[in-house]
């Protein structure tokens, strides 16, 4: 088996029930099943997780650096989209 034939997988681990899966890193494996096992060996040996997701890196569609302007800049001048923009009436302690 040659390492260059292996595929790259992204690993997501949920550390506690009720929390989200978090991206923890990537690894090489031949298929999903092997990727899950390596994820267990590489990322959870100190009992960090209760659930593991692996996704082929190729299957992730990522936004591009070049898109930043059109994606994010338009919200810069729209502070009213944030809850913190609004003044809360006193009886509301937390929101």
């Amino acid at each position, binding site marked *: *088996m040659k*390492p260059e034939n*292996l595929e790259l997988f992204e690993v997501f681990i949920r550390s506690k029930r009720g929390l989200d899966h978090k991206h923890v890193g990537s*690894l*090489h*494996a*031949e298929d999903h*099943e*092997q990727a899950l*096992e*390596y994820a*267990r*060996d*590489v990322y959870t*040996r100190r009992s960090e997780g209760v659930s593991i997701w692996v996704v082929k890196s190729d299957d992730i569609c990522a936004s591009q650096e070049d898109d930043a302007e059109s994606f994010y800049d338009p919200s810069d001048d729209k502070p009213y989209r944030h809850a913190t923009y609004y003044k809360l009436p006193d009886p509301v302690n937390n929101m």
Partner: protein
Amino acid sequence: MMSATDLKQATLEYALRLGDDSVVLGHRISEWVSNGPFLEEDIALGNVALDYIGRARMFYGYAAELAGDGRTEDDFAYMRDAREYKNLLINELPKGDFAYTQVRQLLVDAFNTGFLAELVKSKDATLAAIAAKASKETRYHLRRSREWVLRLGDGTEESHQRAQTAVDALWGYTFEMFELDELEQQLVDAGIAVDTTRLKAQWEVEIKAILSEATLEIPAGDWAVRGGRVGYHTENLGHLLTDMQSVYRAYPGCQW
């Protein structure tokens, strides 16, 4: 019926045997660390090696407790010579190529799965507790080695050839796993040790199914090598112990 003292002595010997099996195979697997075929598998093999070495510590720790003469787990691991080691021979054979390592793991992991499931029922509470802990690890080891043997056996021409060569070379060492000497028979009668003769049928069914799926064949001949449980070893164990014990023997009593 054995006296309480004899039973304790026999249990100590049994714990040492099981510790020897674990430490020797653990050391063999650890030889892959930094030499694994790729990073992920290197780490995975290191984990398996650590599982075995941790298991050896539990068995040796219990042996030290039974001995009650001041000897420690380190004395058992590092101050005994090859003739005093009682591991099954299959564990001491050199790591070979990757296919050889995984085929050996399959044969041993499948055995351990059945063995530990029985040891959990031992009347000796400590052995039963060690078995309960080790049992979970072993199910994972078996999952790994099974998948690797399927991949290699039913893989390329070269991986198939290497896996088949490994099966042929290792098969003769499997018979010893399912044999009892007088000491173990007495412990079986006392409800402490596992009657390994009863595990063979199920092991064979399981191994045959996996090897057949991997397009590998069980060798025809019935040559068998035995002797580990009485201290007759292959020449490989001496080399392994020289390596493994060198630091402790150069600095007796050192801590790490």
